[in-house]
């Protein structure tokens, strides 16, 4: 599994993403600066990490969504490559149009930072095969703008097509339909607010996130 992590000015989960990918794949992820024009050939999975790219100026993810590397990211998506956007990475993926909808200010207006229970709604994706549908897992959240919004038609399509792999149990931010994460139509692009890379069995917050990386490894090994 050949992986890459995009680094923006203000990213702060890029090293966590790097550690999680390294731990599961046994291969060193490529760290790609956002001003680069290319993602290395043969990359299977690109992580768009959390943080506060460009200081969240204007809107979360707005500037990063227009960074030079984004054309290469879109080309990777067009090739059917996997992309995992976490937190600010999810916000960036919606800003680029790779995922529908938008992330708004939390309904409470408060930053939320805690362990969060999620329910796996669809274990039949390349990101979730290591879990069972209906399984509850505990993953940390830490965000101010995680309130997922999309029009009713989009929400209905996401639900009908199994494109909501994770929902919150106890909605922390006001997200429509308790959405914690969504996938693209081809299932290869996942954006989510919770941080699976912060739950990989170290000291940091449980190990329920490692299943996501194991699922990817499995999906990429089967396809290889």
């Amino acid at each position, binding site marked *: 599994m050949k992986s890459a992590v995009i680094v923006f000015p203000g990213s702060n989960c890029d090293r966590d993403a790097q550690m999680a990918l390294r731990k599961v794949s046994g291969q060193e992820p490529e760290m790609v600066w956002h001003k680069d024009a290319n993602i290395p050939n043969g990359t299977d999975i690109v992580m768009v990490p959390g943080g506060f790219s460009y200081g969240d100026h*204007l*809107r979360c993810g*707005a500037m990063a969504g*227009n960074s030079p590397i984004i054309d290469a990211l879109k080309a990777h998506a067009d090739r059917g490559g996997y992309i995992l956007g976490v937190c600010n990475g999810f916000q960036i993926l*919606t*800003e680029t149009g790779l995922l*529908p*909808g*938008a992330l*708004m*200010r*939390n*309904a*409470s*207006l408060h930053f939320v930072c805690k362990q969060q229970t999620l329910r796996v709604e669809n274990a039949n994706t390349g990101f979730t095969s290591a879990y069972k549908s209906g399984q509850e897992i505990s993953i940390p959240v830490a965000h101010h703008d995680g*309130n997922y*919004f*999309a029009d009713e038609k989009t929400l209905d399509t996401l639900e009908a097509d199994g494109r909501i792999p994770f929902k919150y149990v106890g909605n922390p931010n*006001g997200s429509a339909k308790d959405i914690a994460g969504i996938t693209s139509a081809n299932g290869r692009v996942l954006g989510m607010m919770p941080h699976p890379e912060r739950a990989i069995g170290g000291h940091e917050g449980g190990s329920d996130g490692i299943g996501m990386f194991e699922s990817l490894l499995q999906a990429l090994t089967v396809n290889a």
Partner: protein
Amino acid sequence: MKARVHVSLKPGVLDPQGKTVGDTLSRMGFSEVGEVRVGKVIELELEDGLEPSAAEARVKDMCEKLLANTVIEKYEIELA
């Protein structure tokens, strides 16, 4: 030439900031206040000599591509 862009949440999109401001105003005794919406104003200095219609088209393009997120926001352009 200057352009002023007003960006605000579309009608129907919940505005938690506006609601909090409204609640606080009413607690402060401004009982005449109904719904409050919070937006932002972006001022752009444009090069002189642009045709207003051309300038407006360019600023509209900027709004669509960066200044507003049209999934949740609407915008109005004012040239001065």
